[in-house]
C-alpha cells in the first residue's frame, strides 16, 4: 500500500512548509545556548572537580536482572525530559501511543500488550487504579525520581500485577546520615520551571531536611496548559479546543535512612488534583467535557533487621481517587459520571540470606471499594502469598550464575490465580551476561469490565476470568571494552502467549459485554546498543545509541481476525541518537525514531503510515556561585515537524518546543 503513504505525505506537505520558520528559530536557540554554555566549562571543571557529572550508561554489573532495564533519570533530564513518558519513550519493548500533544494522555504498551496489562508502580507500590486499569505516564513528572525500572514480561510473581511487564518509578532518596560527608548541608532542594509550545507552564519545587536520624521532604508541582494548537482535518486547518487544564500536586515525606539502624521507617503523603478538558477526537470534538481528579495517597513502611542476614519489612498504603466527568453539551444528552475509589493495601516481607542462598516470602492483601454513580458500590479483596528464592555463585573472573525463582498464589474474585517467574543469569565473564527468563502472569478484570451495569448497549460480566499470559525470553548483554566499561549491547528474543483475553462482544441480548474469548501470540526481537565513543572533542564526550525491534503481535482468536496484527502494534521500529556531554553538565542530544506501519483495526484493513520523528535537546549548566547546580534546557520534539498520526482521529500537534530552567542545591 505504498499509495497510502504517498497520499498521506501529499496531504500534509503544505503543513510542513508552514512550520519551517519555527524550526529555524529552534535551531537558533540551540545554537545560542551552545555559545552560552561553552566558554566557562574548562575553568569551572578544573575548579570544581567534585561536581563532575557521570554521563555514561550503566555497565552490565550495575544493571538490574535480565529482562529489566534501568533508566537513570539524570540521563533523561539531560535530554530535557520532564515526564516518565518522555523518559522511557525510546526504550525498546516500550511503545507509547499519544493522543495529541505531550500534555495529552498516552497509552503504554510493553511488547505488544495492552495498557491494562502493564503494572505501574511507585517505589514498588501500585499506582495503577483498578477502576480503569491504566496510568497516564504523561502526567507523572520526573522531579524527585532517581531511576525508572522497566521489566518486560509477566511480573505478577514479583508484584501481583503486570501480565506484560511493569514500570517501577523509584523516588530519589536524599543521602542518609551514613553517607553524608562532613560538609554536607542539612538542607537540599530543587526548583524547575519550563514553558512550552501551546501555552504550557510547568513548575516544581521541593526541599529536603536531612537530620541526624530523620529526613523530611516537601515537594510541590503544577502544570497550567492552554494546549491549543492547529491541526489539519480534511485539508482544512482547525484548532484543538478544550484540551488544556491545570494540575497540582503536593507531597510530604519522612524517612529515617540510617541503614545501619535495626529499625527503619518511612511515610509519604501525596495530594494531587487536576481539572482537564476532554477534547475528543478530530471527527467528534467536545468543547465542554471536563475531567476532575482528586487523589490522596498515604504510604507507610517499616522494617527491622533481627540480624545481619535477616530482615522483615511491612508496608501499607491508603489511596483515594475521586473522579468526576461532565459533558453537559453532549449531543445525545448530558453525560456525567462520578467515581470514588478507595484502596487499602499492605504487605509484609521476610527475607533471609545464607551462603549462596537468599530466600523470602511476602504476604500481601489489598482491599478496594469503589463508589460509582453508574456502577454503584462494589469491592474487591485480594490476598496473596509470594515465596521467592535465589541462589548465586561468583567466579574468579567476575562472572558467575544466578538462579532466581518466585511464585505467587493470589486469591481474588473467588478465584485462585497462580503465577511464577524464573530467571537464570549466567555471566561467563564480567563483560558478558546471558539471561533466560520464563514467567506466567495474569491481568485481573477492571471494575468496569466486571460491574458495568445494564445499559442500552453494554453490560459488565461478573464471571470474567483474569487474562493469562506466559512468556519466555532469552537475553544477551555484552559490555564493550574493559571490565566496567560503559558501552553495552543488549539483544533479546521473546515469545509471549495470551489466553482468555477480554473482548467486548455482542451478546444474545443485543448488548455488548466482556468475554474471555481472545487469544494472542506476540514474538519479537530487541537489539540495542549504547556506546561511549573514544574520540576527543575537547572535554566533550559523545555517546551514541541505536535500537531496533521487531514485533509480531498476532491475534490468534478463532474468527475472521485470526492471524492479523493486533491494532496499533508496529511490526518494526528502529531509532538512534547521539548525546554530546560535557563533564560540567552541558549536553546536546539528537534522537531519531522510525516507527513502522500500524494497523488500526482488527481486520488490518487500515494502517497508519510509518513515520520518522526527530527530537533535539540542549542543556547548559550555569556557573552561578552559591548554587550547586543550575541549568537551562531546551527540548524540541518532532524537530522536522513530521505530520504523523499516532492515534487515528487524534491530531498531530507538530513540532513542540520546551525551554526551561532547573536548579538544585
Amino acid at each position, binding site marked *: *500500500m*505504498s499509495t497510502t*503513504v504517498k497520499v498521506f505525505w501529499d496531504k500534509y506537505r503544505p503543513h510542513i512548509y508552514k512550520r519551517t520558520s519555527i524550526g529555524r528559530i529552534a535551531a537558533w536557540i540551540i545554537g545560542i545556548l551552545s555559545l552560552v554554555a561553552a566558554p566557562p566549562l574548562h575553568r569551572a571543571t578544573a575548579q570544581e572537580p567534585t561536581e563532575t557529572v557521570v554521563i555514561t550508561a550503566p555497565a552490565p554489573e550495575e544493571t538490574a536482572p535480565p529482562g529489566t532495564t534501568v533508566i537513570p533519570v539524570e540521563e533523561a533530564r539531560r535530554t530535557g525530559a520532564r515526564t516518565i513518558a518522555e523518559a522511557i519513550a525510546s526504550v525498546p519493548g516500550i511503545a507509547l501511543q499519544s493522543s495529541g500533544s505531550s500534555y495529552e494522555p498516552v497509552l503504554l504498551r510493553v511488547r505488544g500488550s495492552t495498557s491494562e496489562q502493564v503494572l505501574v508502580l511507585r517505589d514498588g507500590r501500585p499506582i495503577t487504579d483498578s477502576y480503569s486499569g491504566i496510568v497516564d505516564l504523561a502526567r507523572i513528572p520526573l522531579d524527585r525520581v532517581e531511576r525508572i525500572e522497566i521489566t518486560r514480561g509477566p511480573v505478577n510473581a514479583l508484584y501481583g500485577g503486570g501480565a506484560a511487564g511493569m514500570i517501577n518509578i523509584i523516588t530519589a532518596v536524599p543521602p542518609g546520615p551514613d553517607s553524608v560527608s562532613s560538609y554536607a548541608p542539612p538542607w537540599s532542594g530543587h526548583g524547575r520551571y519550563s514553558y512550552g509550545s501551546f501555552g504550557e507552564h510547568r513548575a516544581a519545587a521541593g526541599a529536603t531536611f536531612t537530620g541526624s536520624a530523620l529526613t523530611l521532604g516537601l515537594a510541590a508541582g503544577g502544570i497550567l496548559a492552554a494546549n491549543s494548537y492547529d491541526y489539519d*482535518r*480534511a485539508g482544512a486547518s482547525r484548532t484543538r479546543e478544550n484540551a488544556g487544564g491545570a494540575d497540582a500536586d503536593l507531597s510530604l515525606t519522612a524517612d529515617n535512612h540510617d541503614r545501619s539502624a535495626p529499625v527503619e521507617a518511612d511515610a509519604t503523603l501525596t495530594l494531587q488534583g487536576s481539572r482537564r478538558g476532554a477534547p475528543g477526537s*478530530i*471527527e*467528534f*470534538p467536545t468543547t465542554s467535557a471536563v475531567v476532575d481528579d482528586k487523589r490522596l495517597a498515604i504510604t507507610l513502611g517499616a522494617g527491622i533487621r533481627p540480624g545481619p542476614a535477616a530482615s522483615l519489612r511491612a508496608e501499607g498504603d491508603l489511596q483515594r481517587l475521586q473522579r468526576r466527568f461532565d459533558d453537559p453539551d*453532549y*449531543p*445525545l*444528552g*448530558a*453525560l*456525567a459520571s462520578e467515581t470514588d475509589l478507595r484502596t487499602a493495601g499492605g504487605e509484609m516481607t521476610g527475607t533471609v540470606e545464607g551462603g549462596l542462598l537468599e530466600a523470602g516470602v511476602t504476604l500481601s492483601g489489598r482491599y478496594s471499594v469503589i463508589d460509582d454513580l*453508574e456502577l454503584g458500590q462494589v469491592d474487591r479483596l485480594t490476598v496473596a502469598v509470594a515465596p521467592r528464592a535465589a541462589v548465586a555463585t561468583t567466579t574468579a573472573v567476575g562472572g558467575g550464575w544466578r538462579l532466581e525463582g518466585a511464585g505467587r498464589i493470589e486469591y481474588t474474585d473467588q478465584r485462585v490465580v497462580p503465577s511464577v517467574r524464573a530467571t*537464570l543469569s*549466567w555471566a*561467563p*565473564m564480567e*563483560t*558478558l551476561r*546471558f539471561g*533466560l527468563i520464563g514467567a506466567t502472569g495474569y491481568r485481573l478484570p477492571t471494575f468496569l469490565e466486571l460491574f458495568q*451495569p*445494564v445499559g*442500552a448497549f453494554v453490560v459488565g460480566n461478573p464471571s470474567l476470568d483474569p487474562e493469562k499470559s506466559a512468556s519466555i525470553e*532469552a537475553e*544477551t548483554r555484552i559490555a564493550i*571494552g574493559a571490565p566496567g566499561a560503559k558501552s553495552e549491547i543488549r539483544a533479546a*528474543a521473546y515469545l509471549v502467549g495470551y489466553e482468555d483475553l477480554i473482548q467486548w*462482544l*455482542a*451478546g*444474545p*441480548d*443485543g*448488548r455488548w459485554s466482556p*468475554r474471555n*474469548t481472545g487469544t494472542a501470540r506476540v514474538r519479537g*526481537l530487541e*537489539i540495542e546498543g549504547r556506546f561511549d565513543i573514544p574520540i576527543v572533542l575537547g572535554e566533550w564526550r559523545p555517546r551514541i545509541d541505536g535500537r*531496533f525491534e*521487531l514485533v509480531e503481535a498476532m491475534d490468534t482468536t478463532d474468527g*475472521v*481476525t485470526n492471524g492479523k496484527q493486533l491494532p496499533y502494534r508496529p*511490526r518494526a521500529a*528502529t531509532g538512534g541518537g547521539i548525546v554530546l556531554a560535557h563533564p560540567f553538565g552541558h549536553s546536546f542530544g539528537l534522537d531519531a525514531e522510525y516507527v*513502522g*506501519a500500524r494497523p488500526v*483495526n*482488527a*481486520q*488490518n*484493513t*487500515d*494502517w497508519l*503510515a510509518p513515520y520518522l520523528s526527530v527530537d533535539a535537546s540542549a542543556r547548559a549548566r550555569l556557573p552561578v556561585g552559591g548554587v550547586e547546580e543550575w541549568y537551562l534546557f531546551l527540548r524540541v520534539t518532532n524537530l522536522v515537524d513530521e505530520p504523523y498520526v499516532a492515534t487515528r*482521529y487524534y491530531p498531530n500537534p507538530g513540532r513542540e518546543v520546551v525551554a526551561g530552567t532547573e536548579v538544585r542545591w
Partner: protein
Amino acid sequence: MNETRFRRGATRLRGRPLGSMMSLTFLIGLAGVQSSCDLFSVPDDVGGGRSIAEPTREIFILHSLAESLSTVALNADDAVGAVDRDVLLTGAVPNDLVRVGPLLALVVSGENALLTVNEGSLRLSRTIDLGTGRNPMRIAAFADATSSSSARWLVAVTNLLTDTVSVVDVDRGSVLAEFGVGPSPQAILALPGADQSQIRLVVSNTNFRADRPSEIPYGPGSLTELVIEIASDDSGSPVVGLGSSRTIALEEPGYDDDSESGLNPGELLALPAAGELLVIGSGVNLLPGGGGSDDGTVLVLDVHTLEILDRVSIGGSPATGALRADATDTTLYTAGVDGIRRLVRRDASGWDSPSDTYATLIAESGITGSLFADCLVVDGVLYVADFAGDRLRVLDADTAAPLQEVSLSDGPVALLWDDES
C-alpha cells in the same frame, strides 16, 4: 587482555547449549534486519480493488468493523459464489450504502463522510465531507427530476448527533442543505412529492438519550416528514429548499416517558402499491432478564398522510427488515437479536398475526449473540448479515431452511443487491 578474555568466553559459549541458544539471538537479529524493510511499510494485500470480474448478480456487503466493502457473486440458483473480500477500504464505521445511478454511495459514520464509488470497478470516486460531529447514519437516494440532465442524483443522509438531514449533490460533491429533524434520526426514505420539483423525505427519530435511565434509553419515537423543493440556479446546479416540515408521534396513547422505553424506530419500508409505510421499532432491544424480546413493533402508516393504521407487536427486537412481494401477498421479514420473524400481508385481508420466531439463528456457541444488521430477499432466498458472527446467512424464504453460510470480514452491517442483467 580484555580481548583475550572475551574470546575465551565466546569459545566456552559455543560448547554449551545455553550459549548456543543465546548466540542465535544475534543471528535472528541479522535475519530480522534483512527482512525489516517490508515490515516497516503498509502491507499491500488489502483494498486492492476487485480481484474477480464484476459478476452479473452480486450482493455488496459493508463491514462496519473491517471498515471495508466486499462483494459476493450470486450464481444462477441464487447460491453464493465467489467472495471478493475488502475490495474497497472505507474508513471508520461505514453504516449504510445505496445505489445512485452508476455509483454506490456509502455513509461512513466515524469519518463524517459520504463516499461515492464506481459501481463497476468499485474504485473510490469521491469523498464528501459532511462536517465534524454529525455521525451520519443512513442514506436515501433520489433523482433530481427537474434536471435537464437525466443523470443528476441527490442523496439525503441522517446525522445522528446533530438531529439533521444533509442533502448532498453526489455529482458535484457538495452539501446543498441541512435541515433539522427530530432527536437522534436514523432511517430515511425518499418518496415522490406532489410534483417533479418536490421530494418527501421521511425520517425516523429514535430519540436515544444518554441522560435517560440506561434501562430505558429511548425517549418517544417519532417521524419527521420534510418536503423539499428542488430547483436549479443560473449555472444549472441544484438548489434545495425546505417546502414544509412536520412531526408525527409514534408512541401509543398512554406511553409513559418516565418508565417506558420508546419505540426506537430504526427502519422504514414503503409499500407504494398498498399505499403503506412500515416503521420497524426494536424497543429497548433487550431480552427477558434485562429487557424483552417481546419488544419489537411494526407500525403500518398511510404512506401519504402518515396516519398510523395498525400497530403490530412482533417481538425479536428487530433492527432491520426486508419485503418480498408476490402475486397476492407481501411478506415482511424482520431481523433482530434472536433470529428472523415474518409478517404476511394478504391483499384480501391485510396483515396477519405475526409468526413466532420464524428462523432461530442464535449463534451456536451461545457466547456471542447474532446481531442481524441487515437482510434482503431475492427470488425466494433470504440473505442476512450476521454482524456478530461475521457471516452471510442464506435461508429459504419460504421454509426458513438454512441454505448456506458464508464467512465474511469483520462486522457486516449493510447489504445491497445488484443485478446487472
